[in-house]
């Protein structure tokens, strides 16, 4: 009890430290959600666009006709699918073209082995490096009886009516 001035300095120092620590703690705990947030909006926009395009390709233009998507898949016409898909999703209302690229796989079930297999429908073009933040859009297609089976379809794929899944990877180059 010689001089208590030093004790008060200590106390104020501790108080300042507590305030700053508390602030830092709250700040860190709230902003931690931020980390991946910024990439989600373009992802959402692309995914919605991809789903829209597949859904519209699957909507026949007149009642009772086969949709463009089903025709492309059942005739294994990957080039036609690619150009139609890109013409739909690169169109803008200003008339300029967007710069989206795609690749597509088709997943089917081998009924004999009860195995899920896939085969490439549209190969990625040269803008694909593997580092793009690509999004995936999928669509079910029910194929009629394939007779004969189009060239390029894998051998273990059935020719009977079947449901296959078209998976499209979509990215902005």
């Amino acid at each position: 009890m010689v001089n208590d001035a030093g004790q008060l300095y200590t106390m104020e120092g501790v108080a300042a430290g507590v305030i700053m620590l508390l602030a830092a703690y709250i700040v860190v705990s709230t902003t931690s959600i931020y980390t991946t947030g910024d990439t989600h909006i373009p992802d959402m926009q692309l995914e919605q666009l991809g789903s829209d395009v597949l859904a519209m390709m699957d909507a026949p233009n007149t009642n009772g006709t086969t949709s463009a998507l089903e025709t492309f898949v059942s005739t294994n016409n990957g080039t036609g699918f690619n150009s139609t898909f890109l013409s739909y999703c690169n169109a803008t209302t200003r008339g300029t073209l967007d710069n989206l690229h795609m690749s597509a796989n088709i997943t089917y079930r081998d009924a004999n082995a009860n195995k899920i297999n896939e085969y490439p429908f549209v190969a990625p073009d040269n803008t694909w490096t593997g580092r793009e933040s690509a999004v995936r859009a999928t669509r079910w297609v029910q194929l009629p009886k394939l007779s004969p089976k189009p060239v390029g379809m894998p051998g273990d794929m059935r020719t009977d009516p079947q449901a296959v899944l078209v998976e499209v990877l979509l990215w902005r180059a």
Partner: protein
Amino acid sequence: MARMNEEGQWIVLMGLLVAVALFFLALIINQSALVGQTTAEGVLEFPKNDIRDLREAVFDYVDAAGALDPIERVDIEKDIITISLERKNAVVQFGNGTPQDVSGRWLRPVDIHYNNGVTVYNETVYY
């Protein structure tokens, strides 16, 4: 402890200033990111397009079912169920009952169940 020594209070004041500054910086960054992020994530997380697509696939299946033999029907059902599980991580089940009279029209009750671990969707639709 005779009387209060006020010389040290600037330390507390400094601490406060730093804390408040930190808070405002954090708030501005955080709030702006939070809104856009939750909306985009909400849209991505909820598989609206997947469920819509599944419904249409089931309706296509019901449409086509009449022209198929029982083995083909079971095969298509298996296609949808196993590929859903493998490629979309979603447990899917569906079935259609015998047609019923719904206000003058003969419609089939079609059951659709979808569960991807986050979203569960069940529906009985008369088709």
